[in-house]
Each structure stands twice: as C-alpha cells, then as structure tokens.
C-alpha cells in the first residue's frame, strides 16, 4: 500500500537569501532521487522557513518497480572465440550481470549482432531505501557554508533536528550527530514540540504552532496585512519584491505592523530615509495617495500580534535613533565646503598599488578630457564632464556616505547642488556610478556617461596592470560588472569610437606599475582579452550563437553597437534558407583565400568574362560596402557583400583558379584574396556553422 513520507531538516536561522533556492533544490533533488530509485509517488511538495526545510511525498509506492532489463554485451563476433565457443569477454559479461552463458541470446543493433542477457530487478521495499535521504540533505548547495562544534559537515547553519516519517514510522538516518525522529518544533516562542504521526498533517500541525511552512502563503499574508493598512490609513505602500522576498524569509509567522517617526525627519534626502527603512531595518516606506513619502513605515514581525504596541514602540525608537544620526551627519556635512572634502581624498587609499582616491581622480580627469576630445563633444559638455570628474568622489568623505555607503553618488548629487555646483554637474556626479548592476539603469546625460566610462576604465585598466585579474567567483573590484557597464554605455550612446581606441587611452596611465611588470604589451593584451570576454558574454545574453560571436569579435571588438548589429544580422542569416546561396559563395572565397599573400590584380591578365565581371563587381561593391561600413549599417553592408554571390559562383564555376599558368593562377588568387579581405572586414564568416543546410 502506498504511504506518505515527510522529511524535515531543522536548522538554526538560515540566511534569508539562501532559503528559496534551498527549497527548490530540495524538491528537485528528491524528485531525481526517487526516479533513480524507481519509486513512484503522487506528488512532491517542498516547504521552507528560516528554521526548516521540508519535503512531503504523497502516495509513495511500497516497493521499487520490478523491472526486466536487457543488458547489452559485446558483439557476437567478440563473444565467440575461433572455435565457436563463448569467449572470455562473453563469460566475463554474463558473470558481471550475475548470469551464466546459458542466459545469452543475440539481437541485431544497427546491423551488428550483439549478445544480451535478460535481467530481473526485483524491487526493494521503500522502507529500506528511504534512509538514503541523508544524501539529499547533504546535496543542497548554499552560497556560504560553515562548520560548528566538532562536526565535519559544512552547511549554511547548524542542523538541530531531523524528521523522517514513512506513514507513522520513523525513517532512521543521521547527519552531523543528529538522529532523525518524529519530533518537530513550532515557532521559537509561540509553538511547542510536536510529535508527528502523519506526514500529510505536517503543514496543519505547524500552523497550529505558529509556523506557516509555505513561503508563498507567508508572502500572501504580508501583502494582505499591507493592503488592509493602506485601506485603513488611506495611504500607499509600494511593494519592493526583493524586500518582500527577504522579509517573508525572515519570519515563520508574519504579522504586519505600522510605526511612525517624527515629521521633521522628512527634510532628509528621501534616499536616506528609504535606505534607513529598507536596507537597515527591512521596513516598507509609506507614501500618500499622491505619492509623497509619509513619516511612517510598515514592518513585519515574527509572531502574533500580542503586545504589538511594545514591538512598534521599540522599532520606532530604533528608526528615531538612526534618523537622528542621519540628521546630525547631514547638518555637520553642510558646515564644510566641497574643497574640504576634495582635500581629504588624498588621505584615502584607492588600492594599494594604484594610490589614493585623489590619484584616481587625477587619472579620471585626464581620461575624461581625452574622451571628450576623441568623441568631439561640444564645449559645454566637455566643461561639465571635466568638472564632474574633478568632484566625482568628494562625497566619499562626508559623514553621510560614511554611514550610508550605498548612497555614494546620490548624496554627491544632493550636496553638489547645496554647494552651488551646476545642476548638470550634480546629476553627472550621481550618474557616473551607473550602471550599478548587470542590467542596471544607464547614465542619461553625456557627461554622466563619459565620466562613468573614464572612472570604470581607470579601475579596470589599473587593476589589470596591477595584476588583480578576477578569477572564478572572485572579483572584489567588480571589474566584470564595470567592463559590461562600459560596453553597455557605449552601445546605448551609439558613440562611434572603437573599444580598442578607449583602451589605448589607458596605456601610459600607470608608468611605475608597467615598469615593475617588465612585460611589454602584456597588459594591453590582457585588457583586450578581458573586454572581449565581456563583449562575448553580453552577446550570448542577447541569444547570439557562440560561433557568430567568434566571427564578429575575432579581430577586434570595434564599435560596440555596430558589432552587436553585425552579430544580430549574422545570427539571423545563419539559420536563413534564403541566405544559403550567398553564404556558399562567400565561404567559397574564404576557403581558397589566405593561402598566399598576393593582392596585385592585373586586369590585362584576365582570360574569361566571368573573372572580369567579378573584378568589376568587386570594385563597385567595395565602394558601396565601405559607405555602408562608414554608416555602421550592418544589414546593408552584408547585403552589399551578398551582391557578389552570383559573380563569385560564376567565377568558380567557369574558372580553374589553380591554373597551370603561374601568371594566370596568381592573378586569380589575388582577386580571391582581395574579396576575402573585404569579407573579413565585416566578420570572420569562416567560423560560422551555417545551419540552413539542415
């Protein structure tokens, strides 16, 4: 008879950020495990709270499925020796399967005859196999593991109890000194010890003991609580999903409450208020129906609403102290001048080998100047960008950023305005930190974009020159993120400067480190490679195939959005039946090219009309292609190359390139090489695996 099964891992409070992933891993691993065990079931449901991970399996078969399996042995030829007896190979095979040669039969597989034996796998009782669950427990991966007491196991947090229940029987297993049983625990303060006698009653038993085992249900309860407050108080509580995800995993039994703070705190920059509430206290800020921030907050408590006034009062006291600090910092900060902060920057180290933040700012100013020149930007933008670069890091020295590091740039903008800087400069100071995440918001102003590129370029080139190249998951300076940032900004701005031209600007920025390295050009190569890998990564995220990426980036990254466009066009053509004719023509050229370095074509040596026609067409296409290339029109440039197809086919169909006559042969090879060079100016099409053949 089928039975229900429950496993629960009881833990000291798991970090909220690990819980969702752990729950889904638990469900997945259990499913694979049961499949491998040939144990059928109705349904798998996983649960999670900060203190437990659990999985409920309903209708688990009592026994493994019994199966008749065919085991395939060596080919008949190998299975027989020269005298027609079973060979050693055949005997070894049957023994390995627990059979004898009498069980052998033969069957043909793809034209060859093989020997087989039939195997009968008798199903074992589930009860015998279920203790193997300890492997599932140990298979869960967390972002960070620890050890405790004298245990060898590394886990997110210490394991404190284990439940293994098969119907009403205990499934015995042991992990890190903890034995499984049928005892679980309710809410830390409101619940009791619970003896479980039926797996399907798990969720209910916990609910009675103030534990909501399903995170989605906790989320629903929180949202309902918030909606109710909104109605009562006629206000709006914007839901930040990330915060909600965290909060629901910080509690086993959510109770929503609202607190207030003194109105005068609203004079602080909104970002300071929001950061204090969200990041530090995990509160939801409250807005009026019109959208203005109100002096209130919504928190979620772990437990019921008993003595909620005390909890609210405590929370209010905490936010009051935090905001009082913030006001103190804000007022202190205003007493100083911008120059005061700039002067302090030379006391702060940026990176041991790269000097102080002041040194960095000097380099960023220099790069900003060069960039505005390279991009031929107007004078106004150049002035704004340069001023932005000069003051870009001043806010790092303020009390406010010291306390709220995540607000660097945001505070810079506010304070810059207070200190009488141009509005455009203030905005660009904030924007130069963008994008903050892989898909984060990009700078909206040219000045912000330029200084952002200059700042990141300096960090990346500096760290790589200093030998601080990221490895594996270690990227302490965020070089990957910043490189992607530069590429995304360049693509977004559609600035027609190649990435290589940008990288060149950093060449002489770190003379002492270069001298120390004594490896000419090595850094340049590393830097180029670093950017190429990031560019490939961005293309991959856009769904571009690896071979196309290689084709486009083989020579250089070039102008980023032009390269991206080429990749998109080629990725489309790669699978386009219509393009087959053109692709074959172009690849025909590439296959023959580059075997010599001949490029001199002498029209007088042509013997056939088709080679002359190709030559003429090549000239006209070259002009059109270059125009399209100049316009960075990826689609048009490729279609111009495509116009050569007909002529190329004609040429190859009617001429023997490798002619006996050396003069004729070299002339034809030169023609082919010229065309190949033109094609390669676009991309290395020979690396693409054209799919239209299938």
């Amino acid at each position, binding site marked *: 008879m089928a039975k229900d099964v429950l496993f629960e891992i009881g833990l*000291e409070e798991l970090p909220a950020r690990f819980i969702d992933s752990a729950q889904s891993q638990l469900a997945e691993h259990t499913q694979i495990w049961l499949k491998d065990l040939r144990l059928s079931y109705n349904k798998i449901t996983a649960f999670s709270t900060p203190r437990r991970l659990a999985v409920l399996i309903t209708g688990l078969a009592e026994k493994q499925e019994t199966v008749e399996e065919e085991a395939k042995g060596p080919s008949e030829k190998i299975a027989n020796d020269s005298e027609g007896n079973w060979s050693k190979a055949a005997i070894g095979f049957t023994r390995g399967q627990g059979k004898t040669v009498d069980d052998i039969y033969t069957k043909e597989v793809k034209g060859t005859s093989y020997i087989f034996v039939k195997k009968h796998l008798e199903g074992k009782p589930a009860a015998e196999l279920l203790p193997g669950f300890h492997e599932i427990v140990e298979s869960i991966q967390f972002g*960070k593991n*620890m*050890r405790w007491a004298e245990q060898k196991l590394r886990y997110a947090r210490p394991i404190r109890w284990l439940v293994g229940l098969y119907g009403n029987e205990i499934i015995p297993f042991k992990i890190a000194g903890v034995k499984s049983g049928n005892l679980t625990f309710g809410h830390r303060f409101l619940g009791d010890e619970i003896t479980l006698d039926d797996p399907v009653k798990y969720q209910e038993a916990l609910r009675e003991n103030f534990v909501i085992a399903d995170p989605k249900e906790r989320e629903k309860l929180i949202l309902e609580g918030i909606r109710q407050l909104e109605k009562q108080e006629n206000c709006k509580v914007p839901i930040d999903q990330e915060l909600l995800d965290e909060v629901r995993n910080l509690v086993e039994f959510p109770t929503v409450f609202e607190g207030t703070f003194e109105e005068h705190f609203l004079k602080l920059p909104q970002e300071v208020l929001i950061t204090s509430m969200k990041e530090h206290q995990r509160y939801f800020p409250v807005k009026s129906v019109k959208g203005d921030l109100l002096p209130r907050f919504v928190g979620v408590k772990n437990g019921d609403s008993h003595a909620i006034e*005390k909890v609210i009062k*405590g929370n209010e006291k905490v936010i009051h102290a935090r905001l009082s600090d913030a006001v103190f910092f804000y007022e202190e900060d205003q007493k100083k001048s911008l120059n005061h902060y700039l002067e302090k920057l030379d006391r702060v180290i940026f990176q041991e080998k790269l000097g102080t933040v002041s040194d960095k700012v000097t380099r960023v100013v220099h790069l900003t100047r060069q960039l505005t020149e390279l991009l031929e930007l107007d004078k106004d933008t150049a002035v704004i960008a340069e001023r932005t670069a000069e003051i870009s890091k001043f806010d790092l020295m303020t009390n406010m950023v010291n306390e709220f590091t995540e607000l660097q740039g945001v505070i810079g903008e506010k304070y810059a305005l207070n200190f009488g800087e141009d509005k455009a400069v203030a905005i660009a100071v904030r924007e130069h930190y963008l994008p903050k995440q892989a898909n984060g918001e990009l700078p909206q102003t040219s000045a912000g974009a330029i200084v952002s590129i200059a700042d990141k370029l300096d960090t990346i080139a500096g760290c790589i020159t200093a030998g601080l190249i990221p490895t594996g998951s270690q990227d302490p300076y965020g070089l990957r993120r910043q490189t992607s940032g530069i590429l995304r900004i360049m693509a977004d701005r559609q600035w027609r400067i190649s990435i290589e031209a940008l990288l060149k600007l950093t060449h002489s920025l770190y003379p002492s480190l270069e001298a120390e390295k004594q490896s000419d050009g090595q850094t340049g190569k590393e830097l180029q490679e670093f950017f190429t890998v990031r560019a490939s990564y961005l293309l991959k995220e856009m769904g571009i195939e690896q071979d196309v990426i290689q084709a486009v980036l083989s020579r250089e990254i070039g102008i980023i959005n032009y390269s991206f466009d080429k990749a998109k066009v080629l990725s489309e053509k790669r699978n386009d039946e219509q393009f087959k004719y053109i692709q074959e023509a172009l690849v025909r050229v590439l296959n023959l090219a580059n075997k010599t370095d001949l490029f001199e074509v002498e029209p007088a040596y042509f013997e056939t009309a088709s080679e002359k026609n190709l030559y003429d067409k090549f000239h006209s296409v070259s002009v059109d292609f270059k125009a399209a290339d100049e316009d960075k029109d990826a689609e048009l440039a490729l279609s111009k190359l495509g116009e050569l197809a007909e002529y190329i086919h004609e040429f190859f169909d009617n001429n023997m390139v490798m002619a006996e006559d050396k003069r004729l042969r070299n002339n034809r090879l030169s023609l082919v090489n010229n065309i190949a060079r033109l094609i390669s100016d676009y991309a290395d099409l020979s690396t693409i695996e054209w799919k239209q053949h299938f």
Partner: protein
Amino acid sequence: MNIQEMILALQKHWSEQNCIIMQAYDVEKGAGTMSPMTLLRSLGPEPWNVAYVEPSRRPDDGRYGENPNRLYQHHQFQVIMKPSPDNIQELYLDSLKKLGIDPLEHDIRFVEDNWENPTLGAAGLGWEVWLDGMEITQFTYFQQIGGLEANPVAVELTYGIERLASYIQDKENVFDLEWTNGVTVKDIFFQPEFEHSTYTFEESDTDMLFQLFTMYEKEANRTMEKGLVFPSYDYVLKCSHTFNLLDARGVISVTERTGYISRIRNLARKIAKTYVAERERLGFPLLKKEEK
C-alpha cells in the same frame, strides 16, 4: 534594571552554564574579541567556556561626551564556548529572559551577519540578534582565527551593554543610563570621555606614540621568538591601541596605514601559530582534564 544588575544577571546565567567568569583583561583593546581569553583560547582542540565584561576603547569614536550614542570607551559582555553547544541559541535566549526581556512581548530575530576582522586574520559566520529591530548582540561561530582554521568551532556572543541598557531603561542618551542606584554613566564616564577625547584628538604626543609602536612591535617579536606567547600578545595589543591613537589623530598616511595594519596582522598570525604549538608542547592540558 540598571547596568550593574544586568552584568550580574549575565554573569550568573553564564556561570550556571559552566562558564569561567573572568575579569576584564588589563590591556587596552578595541573589542572584547581581542582579549587573549577569546582570541588565543579559541584556538586549538582544548575546550574553553568563559564569560567576561570587556571595556572596549575606540579612540576614533571619542566625542568629548557630547554625542548620545558614541563613546571612546563602551562595554561588551563577551561569552565564548568551545566547542559550540548544540543548544547555544536557547542558552542565549534564556539570558535575555534573565534581563527581563520576555520573548513573547518582543520580536527577537536572528538576521544573517558574517563577521570578519582582517587585522586578526579572523572570520566567522552567524547573526546579529534583533530585538524589536535593534541589534543587541553579535552571534558568531568562529571559522578562522589568526589565519588558522577553528577546529573545534567556538561560538562567540557579544552583547553591547550600553545598547541593551538603553533599551531596557528606555533612555535615548547613553549618559543618562543608570549604572547602579542613583549613579549614571555620566557620573562615572563623562570626565574620562572628555579627557580621552581631548588627549586623542589634541594632546597626544605623536612622536612618542610612533616610537612606542616600534618598541612594542620589537618586543612582541622578541618575546615570541622565545615562545612567550602571552607577553608577546600583550605587546600586540599595545601596538594595536597605539595605532588606533595615531590613526584617530590623523597622522598616519594612507599608504602607511595599510602597512601598520599588516604589521599587526603578521604578528597576530605568528602568535596564533606559536600559541597552538606551545599548547601542543604542553600536551593540551585542558583536553586531558576533560577526559578525566
């Protein structure tokens, strides 16, 4: 509950859990973790359970007694248990009850917080404990100390005494806290706060402090070479405090700063190794005692 009663309650509670109640260590330090009773004793295989109040000096936080939350010197109640007991969370929560904090009337939570002190080559995983949104305790399972792997793992609890007291006594200004009947923090600590701030930011003899740092460092190295772990460690603590004084005065340039920190770290690492080697040479006496 005044601070004195709090301390007595905590001492009694942890004494009942078989912790040795130590007195504060008599060398200046920035955190309770730096006491040799924690930092050194957490190393190696020997069991170790201890609790003590530790004054922590942070010259840079000195505010002449004017700031309601920041102090040149505050107090930590420190608990170390090695190996970490299976019911350590319950033991901790019981200690809060002894302080009059009823978990049924509050929201107590364990929020992930991983601790690291590069100067001591130390790192651990754990939580900050929240009481109605306020961080009252740092709860850490040591994973590494002085660059050595912690095995068995010790657990460290650090209660912020003034923090907790401000909650229990419902006071906004730390100087208004009652230490014992009719005596406030202000009565005891205002003058030293003011004078230490004045000394730190205005009066310290930096030439002398630089000289002291070098002398302390030299003596730490010399004594370590002779296998005198504890005297050597005292000089490391003196180095650390001297450095903090110099740093607060703003006389250590950025480049030098990293240099000084790595000098202290190197000393701490060497001492950690020497300590374990010395304990091993002595046959890990506390381990044997436990077996008996």
